[in-house]
């Protein structure tokens, strides 16, 4: 029935995938210490991190030399996807037709959702691909993490660069904000989770160590007392943040865990994995309460609870985003129209007026917005980034600013300009897309310089004991003194 059933191609990838992953890891460990030099990092970082692929730790390297090369894994992938694409084009919205979607008319009472997101700021500074961008719960800040091993905090309203958090020994794949917006947790390929003060930019002394492999996803509990982490080591850990203690280890999956999330009241945790399963866990007892699996068994890379906690949004590597009713265990909606075959992309729920939308990045550089109810693509920000748009997040406020991060190392802020965007175009410093780029270039230059500062600092501190404080003492503080008062 499902195209994953054929035994010819399934076992092989899974076996292969894992062995390559490990051997690669061992290799690098043996030949070059992971934190030896920035160059070494540079060598394999761009293709790693969340950005990178799960099925293709092999290609990660190969892609270096020849981008077009497809190994056997990719091959199987493409074949599968070709089928799927065909299906999709026959069924509903393909990429091209998505603007005028052929879906049956929505219920008469329903007013179609209109979105008009325009670029507001380009934030440059990361030297490598941006894996995740997240709005703080109070909506004032944006944190972005990157394969270059740093986390940057930006002012959401002005786009100003506030701080750079350094300390991880490898690329940072995931970040999460505490509910009070004062702490950031980051998970990295150096297998540790760090907690950072937002105001000082300093890390809390003790890291959360315990994962045996890359930390890939994090989420705070709504009260801020717990953290859930998903890792490449196939486990999901629940941490007591006050004591920095591993509270519970959930024997979650048989493949790397791609995403984790907390429900709004903190009683449930969900996790997803490359093995195609999404599991729902009871926080209090650590028991698995529900497993969601789609017939096609496509690898699930990111999961998110809906704002009201009734549904789970799952991003899968078959270019679909599915909305699950986890109580009944059924798919309620399937959103298509973006490309997601290789990278673990992320998206978010947003609110426009009283309606909900879903936004996600795409591997072709677009950002795609769907109406939650009709599944229509309501907006497509074409070529939002050069290359893959890894992560998109919405601000918690009612205006739902959108921020995106891409493999090109930039972070972009988008705002919704309601009805007749051309007219109000000059308002609030919001410019047309083209102008926006130009206008922001000024800002960008500053950030760029900052970026170079980072480089210098990095070079200096990379081999020795990395102390973000010392580095910051020199130039970081001087830059952000005025803003510290705000805090």
């Amino acid at each position, binding site marked *: 029935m499902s195209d994953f059933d054929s035994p010819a191609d399934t076992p092989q990838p899974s076996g292969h995938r894992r062995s390559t992953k490990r051997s690669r890891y061992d290799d690098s460990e043996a030949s070059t210490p992971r934190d030896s030099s920035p160059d070494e990092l540079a060598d394999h970082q761009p293709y790693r991190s969340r950005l990178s692929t799960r099925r293709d730790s092999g290609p990660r390297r190969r892609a270096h030399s020849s981008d077009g090369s497809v190994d056997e894994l990719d091959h199987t992938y493409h074949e599968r996807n070709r089928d799927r694409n065909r299906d999709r084009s026959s069924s509903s919205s393909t990429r091209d037709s998505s603007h005028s979607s052929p879906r049956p008319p929505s219920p008469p009472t329903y007013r179609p959702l209109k979105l008009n997101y325009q670029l507001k700021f380009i934030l440059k500074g990361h030297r490598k691909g941006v894996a995740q961008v997240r709005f703080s719960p109070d909506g004032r800040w944006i944190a972005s993490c990157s394969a270059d091993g740093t986390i940057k905090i930006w002012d959401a309203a002005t786009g100003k660069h506030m701080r750079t958090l350094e300390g991880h020994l490898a690329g940072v794949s995931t970040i999460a904000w505490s509910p009070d917006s004062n702490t950031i947790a980051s998970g990295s390929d150096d297998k540790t989770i760090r907690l950072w003060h937002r105001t000082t930019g300093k890390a*809390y002394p003790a890291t959360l160590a315990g994962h045996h492999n890359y930390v890939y996803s994090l989420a705070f509990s709504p009260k801020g007392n717990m953290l859930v982490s998903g890792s490449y080591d196939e486990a999901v850990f629940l941490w007591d943040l006050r*004591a920095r203690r591993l509270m519970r280890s959930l024997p979650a999956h048989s493949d790397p865990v791609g995403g984790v999330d907390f429900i709004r009241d903190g009683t449930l945790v969900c996790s997803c994995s490359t093995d195609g399963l999404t599991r729902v866990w009871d926080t209090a007892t650590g*028991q698995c309460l529900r497993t969601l699996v789609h017939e096609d068994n496509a690898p699930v890379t990111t999961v998110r609870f809906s704002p009201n*906690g009734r*549904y789970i949004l799952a991003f899968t590597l078959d270019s679909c985003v599915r909305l699950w009713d986890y109580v009944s265990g059924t798919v309620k909606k399937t959103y298509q129209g973006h490309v997601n075959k290789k990278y673990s992309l992320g998206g978010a729920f947003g609110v426009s007026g009283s309606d*909900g939308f879903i936004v996600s990045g795409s591997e072709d550089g677009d950002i795609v917005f769907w109406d939650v109810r009709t599944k229509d693509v309501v907006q497509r920000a074409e070529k939002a980034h050069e290359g893959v748009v890894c992560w998109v997040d919405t601000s918690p406020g009612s205006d739902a600013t959108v921020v995106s991060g891409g493999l090109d190392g930039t972070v972009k802020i988008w705002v919704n300009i309601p009805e007749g965007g051309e007219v109000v175009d000059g308002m609030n410093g919001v410019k047309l897309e083209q102008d926006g780029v130009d206008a922001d270039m000024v800002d960008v230059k500053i950030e760029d310089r900052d970026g170079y500062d980072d480089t210098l600092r990095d070079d200096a501190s990379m081999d020795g004991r990395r102390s973000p404080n010392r580095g910051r003492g020199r130039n970081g503080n001087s830059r952000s003194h005025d803003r510290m008062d705000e805090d």
Partner: protein
Amino acid sequence: MNLSLVDPFVLAQDYPESTTGSLRSGHATCVRFNRKGDFLAAGRVDGTVVIFDVETNGVARKLKGHTRQVQSLSWSRDGRYLLTASQDWKCNIWDLSDGSIVRSVRFEAPIYIGELHPWNHFKFVVALFDDQPLFVDATNREAIKMTLPSAPKRTRYDEDEATTDKQAAQDAKQNTTVVVFTASGEHVISGTSKGWLNIIELSTRTTIYSTKICSGVVIYLRVTSSGRDVVLNASDRIIRTIQLPNLTAADLDPDTIDMEVEHKFQDVVNRLSWNHVCFSSTGEYVTASTYNNHDIYIWERNHGSLVKILEGPKEEHGVVEWHPHRPLIAACGLETGRIHIWSIIPQQRWSALAPDFVEVEENVEYIEHEDEFDIHPQEEIHKRRLDLEDEDIDVLTIEPVKGSIIEEENPFRMPVQLDLNDSDGEEEFIAIGRGEMRRKSPTDGRDYTLEGDAVASGDDRKSKTKKRR
């Protein structure tokens, strides 16, 4: 929100089954859950109050300010303020948003119990040793103490010089040993050393009703969360549950109040005394810790029968508390000062791990569907699947969860301290090298000394805390 997924049989279980763990921070002598049930306050022998996070079983906050053993604890309704009464003759009101003492009231006598007003976190009542109970209004920095009567209200019908005199003499010797607020906070129920139960109206500070409930001393009183019932522990080894009249009724005539004992719980075989009693979350059950015995008893109130004797760690338990909405009991071990937890260990349902498996009670003969093995082209399956997704869904509207407390406008949320200093000996074992542990010696952690040494350690503490301040 996990309720819809949890096994209904687990949810139907409403009292704990077995011990599931323990909490430790020093030597705890009393515990109390907040109304939401996410935090457990524990008072220690050394005067420190520790707030445990029930979700993580970790310490959320430590409150240092008392110099002697903590006697009783009482949370404000929103969980932001905590009233502590200590053997240093002081009551403190703590603000948990920053851990500061907002009010500290000193009394002229040791305190049996302090109880916070259910709606006003600056008002409380205290029962004092060998003294009249007080109603304290600490709204201003200078707390106003108002004396409440201990003497029972006598009916005037048997007016007779001799008996009145005798009664007056008796009443003068009578002391209030325990006070609690009713749900509305307009009345105080008090128990006396002669076994009387008084209802005191706060506005007039007069006893409006009295009844002699038992012959011994009333040790403890507790009102259910609904405020309709009260449980009473007395020194005559009997636990009584009593239904409260509606004291807020407009046409309340104190003379017509009739309070009858609903159930009497006792162990007639072993003649056990009870250290502490408490209601279950709904008031359906009553639990008690036993004197000179290790067990915790649970009775149900429908028929008044004993439903469970919880066995646990081999030690006697003092204060026992039931979680406000879960089948979970916490009790303080008297010897070790550990807080033991009884709860339910749910079984993992294996069908939850694999959605295509179903747990069945009996074998089911499988009947194949007509079209079960029909082969459809991929596209058709896909299309059909997508077409099925025409349901109208709402990802934004938050539905209230049944059975949970309706959240207030701005619910208080205790800040999470990530830099909590819990270095002063939470663990009995300390690492002395790689892979080597040793038990902490009694000298470097005074927390573990027995009651007898408590005085000395208390003094130590005093100097220490002073320095700290």
